[in-house]
């Protein structure tokens, strides 16, 4: 595959770019932040996403969706990142949809229509500690009646309290540290024994701490195979990772151009500061890092779409690189803005906060660099 976007993909990018810039620019984000919105996003905007066809971008055509791939989802995510548009797109339309694609028809019919309509939100309940360690899952699902009983705790469940359903990873066999013996469950938000505590994050998204206190689910709540959840989990995580990487390309690129504009207008020492070589070289270096990140994210997306054996390696590298580059962009951004970069009034600080959350989501750059090393045989 050529590493350039097709005409259709360019058209989608233009559509998504216009849409986010007019319907969900940074002012939209500020509005919902400042009113202390309990969801951290606008349900109205989520409906508009559906009208644009975005919410079903990864849902197969046979299930009523667009049947597109990670490249297309990434195009939308980049524009989300560039505008800091708050939405459940990454968790619901990317990660959850990738998992549900592997579920049986009844389950797909139960959830896809709501996602397509922009009515349903799904939370991903994986993490049990402060760092991403999916194989360390200890939450237990015991056989009980016609189904299972779930006991344990989850955290960093983004938009958890706003979700209609949680995808919960639990252990049906084996011990923490093993990839075998995991099973994924679709748990209704109203299930008895399920409780959540909302926690506002630095980027003003809301994540939940989830308690599962003997939550009873039917056998048909299982997504994929019992004990074989790792396969579904891996697909879901990789989609979420490459998606977060694409969003970080948007965040980093947005912050970068905002900074370049500032360098071209701010005057000190009787000159615009963009004339100082000390800043020019850092700007050019940053541009190179962001361009590299953009490239490896595109490569990872296309390998995933091809179902290539190396996709996993490239997704790990892409999440790592996008994280490092985006982080550099927001740090340089705040620094090069000088004092006003520290103010809440200027947008650059908002990008810095968003970068932090996305870097942490589904494994940070160090976690993924370590995986790259392992997959590379050392």
């Amino acid at each position, binding site marked *: 595959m*050529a*590493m*350039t976007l097709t005409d259709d993909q360019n058209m989608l990018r233009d559509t998504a770019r216009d849409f986010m810039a007019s319907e969900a620019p940074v002012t939209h984000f500020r509005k919902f932040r400042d009113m202390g919105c309990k969801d951290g996003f606008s349900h109205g905007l989520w409906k508009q996403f559906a009208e644009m066809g975005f919410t079903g971008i990864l849902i197969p055509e046979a299930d009523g969706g667009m049947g597109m791939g990670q490249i297309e989802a990434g195009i939308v995510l980049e524009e989300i990142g560039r505008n800091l548009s708050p939405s459940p797109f990454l968790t619901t339309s990317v990660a959850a949809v990738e998992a549900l694609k592997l579920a049986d028809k009844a389950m797909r019919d139960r959830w896809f229509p709501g996602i397509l309509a922009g009515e349903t939100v799904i939370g991903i309940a994986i993490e049990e500690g402060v760092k991403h360690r999916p194989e360390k899952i200890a939450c237990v699902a015991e056989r009980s009646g016609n189904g299972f009983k779930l006991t344990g705790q989850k955290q960093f469940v983004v938009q958890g309290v706003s979700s209609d359903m949680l995808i919960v990873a639990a252990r049906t066999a084996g011990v923490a540290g093993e990839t075998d013996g995991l099973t994924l469950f679709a748990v209704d938000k109203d299930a008895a024994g399920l409780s959540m505590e909302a926690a506002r994050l630095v980027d003003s998204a809301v994540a939940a701490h989830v308690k599962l206190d003997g939550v009873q689910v039917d056998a048909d709540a299982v997504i994929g195979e019992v004990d074989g959840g790792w396969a579904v989990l891996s697909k879901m995580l990789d989609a979420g990772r490459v998606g977060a990487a694409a969003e970080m390309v948007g965040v980093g690129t947005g912050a970068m151009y905002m900074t*370049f504009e500032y*360098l*071209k207008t701010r005057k000190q020492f009787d*000159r*615009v500061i*963009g*004339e100082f*070589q000390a800043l*020019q*070289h850092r*700007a*050019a*270096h940053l*541009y*190179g890092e962001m*361009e*590299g*990140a*953009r*490239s*490896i994210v*595109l*490569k990872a997306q296309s390998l995933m779409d091809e179902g290539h054996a190396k996709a996993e*390696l*490239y997704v790990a*590298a892409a999440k*790592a*690189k996008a994280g*490092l580059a985006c982080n550099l962009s927001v740090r340089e951004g705040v620094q090069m803005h000088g004092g006003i970069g520290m103010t809440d009034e200027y947008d650059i600080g908002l990008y810095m906060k968003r970068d932090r959350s996305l870097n942490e989501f589904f494994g940070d*750059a*160090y976690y*993924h*660099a*370590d995986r*790259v*090393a392992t997959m*590379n*045989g*050392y």
Partner: protein
Amino acid sequence: MSELETFRAEARAWLEENCPAEMRTPAKGDEDVCWGGRNFVFQSEAQKLWLERCVAKGYTVPDWPKAYGGAGLSPQETKVLRQEMAKLGCRSPLNSFGIWMLGPALLKFGTEEQKVHYMGQIARGEIRWCQGYSEPGSGSDLVSMQTFGEDKGDHWVVNGQKIWTSYADKADWIFCLVRTDKTNKYQGISFLLFDMETPGVSTKPIKLISGNSPFCETFFDNVVVPKHQIVGEVNRGWDVAKYLLGHEREMISGMGGDGGVTSIGAAMKATLSQEPVLRAQMALFDVDNLTFRAHGERFMDEWKTGKAHPAYSNLMKYVGTELNKKRNELVMSIGGSQALEWESERSNGGSKARNWLRTKANSIEGGTSEVMLNVVSKRILEMPGA
């Protein structure tokens, strides 16, 4: 099957049949590389055969037009051919500054006669070229160069000195920047071609920190150059020089990779598992290495379809060469005391140390990293100032 896939199958079959087994192993060093030229001594029958077969097929320069010795392949076909060569581990049949630098400049600025003559010689590996740009007083600030060609009607008489001329002692011809108007800085330079055996040309090798001497000081003492040996117009050689530099930077940036995406970490596992901080550095390097590969692929796809910014090769040169230096620092650290050995057989004649030192030039030759950052900042990011 799409046309491109048909081509892939054909190219594959041709390579399987025509690339000798010995040419499907990695070249061990510079002495294994075929540079062609009047005085080139083939290292093996296989090397000679591989060159001849590629020449006949136009595969030394697959994307050049057939009339100038190429195979007339499209950018997509060229990419496919290179992919298939990489899969089989085929060595490059011919390396040359003619292919990487002069050829593209001739294609853009040369006369039809020059294209047929000089590009044909390059494609067939008959003439080896060197590059006469830098002077002792003019490195990064190349346009300040002084080597002067005095107009004598149907020829110029060239006097002056070049430096850092790679392989000047092995090259047959030189493409050389010569000042033909002292009153005009940018529009006073001409791009001349001449034989290194012309009376008055002499070279003196310079020994590098790696212990090797691949380049020279080059002196011109009343060298006669006929007027028809100019590329482009008189006094407009700077345009040619800059265009050629774009290709040179593209070529050097390619050296940032290791020809593939295989990690050097696996072979060093025993050491890395004992050195967690070094392993972490290696892991972050691998992330950058995979990134650079993808970046290079994207750049080539955009470059060949005319979508890349014309100054983008400067960025790739910066990123690629800095990466290559980092790789060699890691190789030295992982190699430990053995990598310090300079002559022993155990160290393959100090190959790690010598390669490590050689790579330090990557971010100097063809324009330094600092100059690349200047260009990216001004031309791509459009930062203000001189």
